[in-house]
């Protein structure tokens, strides 16, 4: 069971209070009805599922009820940071640079694909 810090409650709470809500930073197009099949398919179905750092959404469902984002290493389950919904993607390089050196196996990072929706 993970300990997760809620950026609204500013406290670490057990995973039981949270619900994972999938990949973060998938932006719903404001004129979605005009989206091409390809873009819509990418928004609806395609996910990064990286081995390593992933941006993901959580909801503090049995707490404050807020949705927020987190950067978690899918190999070690370690959270790099959590941040409020709507805040920009944190600079992972900077976070990693400031991280206490750990002898966990090195994280393979892959440039995240940029979604057209985000451009």
């Amino acid at each position, binding site marked *: 069971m*993970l300990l997760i810090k809620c950026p609204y409650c500013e406290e670490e709470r057990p995973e039981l209070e949270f*619900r994972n809500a999938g990949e973060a930073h998938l932006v719903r197009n404001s004129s979605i009805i005009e989206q091409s*099949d390809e873009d819509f398919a990418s928004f609806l179905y395609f996910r990064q599922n990286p081995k390593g750092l992933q941006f993901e959404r959580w*909801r503090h469902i049995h707490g404050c009820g807020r*949705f927020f984002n987190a950067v978690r290493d899918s190999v*070690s389950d370690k959270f790099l940071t959590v941040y409020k919904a709507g805040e920009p993607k944190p600079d992972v390089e900077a976070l990693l640079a400031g991280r206490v050196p750990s002898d966990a196996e090195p994280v393979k990072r892959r440039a995240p694909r940029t979604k057209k929706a985000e451009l």
Partner: protein
Amino acid sequence: MVHSTHSGSNRIAGVGRLTPAKTVRFTFDGQNLTGLEGDTLASALIANGIHLVGRSFKYHRPRGILSAGSEEPNALIDIERDKSRKQPNVRATVQEIYDGLKAKSQNRWPSLTFDIGAINDVFSPMLPAGFYYKTFMWPKFAWKSIYEPKIRAAAGLGVVPGEPDTDRYSNRFAHCDVLVVGAGAAGLAAALSAASTGAQVILCDEQSEVGGALRYETDVKIDGLSGYDWAVATYAKLRGMANVRVLTRTTAFGYYAQNFVSLVERISDHLSRPAAEMPRERLWQVRAKKVVLATGAIERHMVFANNDRPGIMLASAARLFLNQYGVAVGRKVGVYTANDSAYAAAIDLKRAGVDVPVIVDTRDSPSSAVIEEARSLGIDILTGHAVYSAGGKRRVSSISIKPNNGGNERKIVVDALIMSAGWTPSVHLFSQSRGKVAWDAANERFLPGTYAQDCISIGACNGTDNLQSAIDEALVAGGGQTGALAATGGTNWISGMIGSAPGAGANTTVKAFVDFQNDVTAKDVRLAVREGMHSIEHIKRFTTNGMATDQGKTSNLHGLAIAAEALDKPIPAVGLTTFRAPFTPVTFGAIVNHARHDLFDPTRRTPMHAWHEAQGAPFEDVGQWKRAWYYPQAGEDMHAAVNRECVAVRNHAGIFDASTLGKIEVVGPDSAKFLELLYTNPWEKLGVGRCRYGIMLREDGFIYDDGVVGRLAEDRFHVTTTTGGAPRVMHHMEDYLQTEFPHLNVWLTSTTEQWAVIAVQGPKAREIIAPLVEGIDLSNEAMPHMSVREGKICGVPTRLFRMSFTGEAGYEINVPADYGKAVWEAVYEQGKPHGLTPYGTETMHVLRAEKGYIIVGQDTDGTVTPQDAGLTWAIGKNKTDYVGIRGLLRRDLVSDGRKQLVGLKTVDPKVVLEEGAQIVANPNQPVPMTMIGHVTSSYWSENCGRSIALALVIDGTKRLGERLYVPMPNGVIEVEVTGMVFFDEKGERLNG
């Protein structure tokens, strides 16, 4: 040597730590035996001269006790307190005896000494590793019906108890600064050091008392005391500290992310008459800032022919039986070793007066003080020799010895053989923590390499081979200042051998067991390699090496070494199988814990529940809710009751508890805008006081939920959801509100539990409620179908909805939950003279099906669009956005060939279809037929005088009037495709 016959003929007076006067009576296979308080079942059996305790898994070979700890693969016993408290596969080496303990051997028939299944041993050439993958292939059906059940019955070990477990299990969460796993010398020192800093410390050990190897190491001195005395004194000291919790009989079995470690504490399994309120086990879920692993090492056996004969055991086990329990494992004990540590056992036995005829050492010219000491005691030491085979069947009777460099075989008579191939550091928990092990080539062992969590390994599990070094390491790991602890003596954990011993190598066909519990021999591992298994994961699964309940604690490294040799690869290149939780088997009771019976899941009851109960209504489970199903009158079965209720609603009126419907209050200036985005329907123009049936989609265009939404004010909506859908709809709404449409000024509140809902439906509905309602004009003109008013009923505030899920004119009376039962009773009393009839969920289902109203989740399955369900009218034509709008445009969702919801009428009106039944166009086609749909709802409709059904059928709306077929085991049912409305097609009754 002096034998004390009180508690077994192999008990040696004056040796061990048990009190001879404290005897305990127990039975084994019905035989009355006596042991001593503090004995394990294993020590008590050996004290009574019993080594044969079970039959092996596959070959039914006689098996004895291999170890004295939790790694035991062989001595699996059935312990029975009473019929419901019966535990199979208990390791005799961890079960403490108590007065009245009833133990039984397993996997034998008719008896332990004569077992029919042992025929498998004779036919073993026909039963090599993986035989069942090849032998039982044909005919295909026979695997499930014949082969597998037979093999399982013949193989399996213990028998599952036949009655539910009546024991209690408890559960605790704990947080600490330092969790120390293992209370041997290293663990105790680390706990002492950590405790000295004031840190919150939890120390746990799987044994009944602390000390680990100190319990049998006779040569250790720590801090001026004997090792054991130091352990006992340290235990007392730790127990006296407020910041330390010491848990004995407690196994750390799982190590998860963020230093979350699960422990199971066995509380009453060792007690003769546990108090009724005492739990059997307690599950500890510990979150530790730091974890110190002091899990020690496990001794390996030697792999040679017939090494599984009862009376052959690990040297350290024999030493523990002697020094702790005062039990000699035999009277003539041979020793077979590849390292120094077995010599200490030989010395202890010899000093206790046991005859030790020989120490056979595979090493050519070993030299150390302990060897000299053994020699000086007059023990015959044969270096450069190997035991080629053990004689005897139900007990070892001799060993055959040969020099490594050739020469003649000799036979030596023994009644026990103790062995040591060396020590395997217990890296199980370290590995579970996702740490990576590293191969120590010099000493042929895996050690903790790269750590993944805030955890540290100390002592033998870390490959620290010298006691003083282990204690120094422990004191540092604890993080405190306790001053140095001087230590001398102790086991030398290094050296030894892995793989098969001489005489059991390649090209031999002897039965030299690697994994005792799963009957895997060295030649099985080699066979796996010959059959093309090159990865250790494949070899493991082909041979089942390490797959038994002991998880290969003694066998993994041997298996790996034999495979590596056969593959001609270095060991690290062959790899190590993954260590997984649990470290030792954990009862389902401990894991399920309180979450059973009433505590398995919350039960939700409506405010009117007691009334339904008093009427004798059976209840239907809908999610966590209990809903009244039907209200049988004297002599009625369900069918009769439902028919009566259905007719009553349409002819007079019915009263129905709809409190379980999900309710969400949507409030704020942008409420209408928000609902426009969440539902397919338009909301902006819905007048205050009016209602609308709404459909909610997922982004992919499929129906997610539905319900009636009432507008109470410009900025306030009362949203209803399906009974089961309420929480996920709330979650879905919050998700969009918080993350996609945060610019909207809207608040969402779940009000499901706040409102009791009483549906009054039928032609007399208005007449019945009118006298009870204040401040609302109920006339058709003032309050038409699909409207909502606020006022009072029976003097309490109400939100009164004019709506219908039956097709009749009707109301849904929402009152604050606390008034639900009182208002229900008042309405019922008022309505009785008008024929008001309570109806349950079954009648509700029939009535709505008569009208073709769908139930989301029954008539839809997450792949149904509004168009498929005949609900195109509910989509706002001019809307440019709502969740699902783009999904609905997907090519597959608008093309032909989709399954559409239609009505079905059986040609024989008396036949009621089965829900879920498949539909075909041509019943004469060959099997497998092309299925074009299935029945989603099907009922007998008393109001229609026939059966009715809804079904999802490919291109269903184009098939109206077509004949289709439902093949069933008893014949084909012919049906006609119809519209979805079976009763009052024009819908005139809604207007009362």
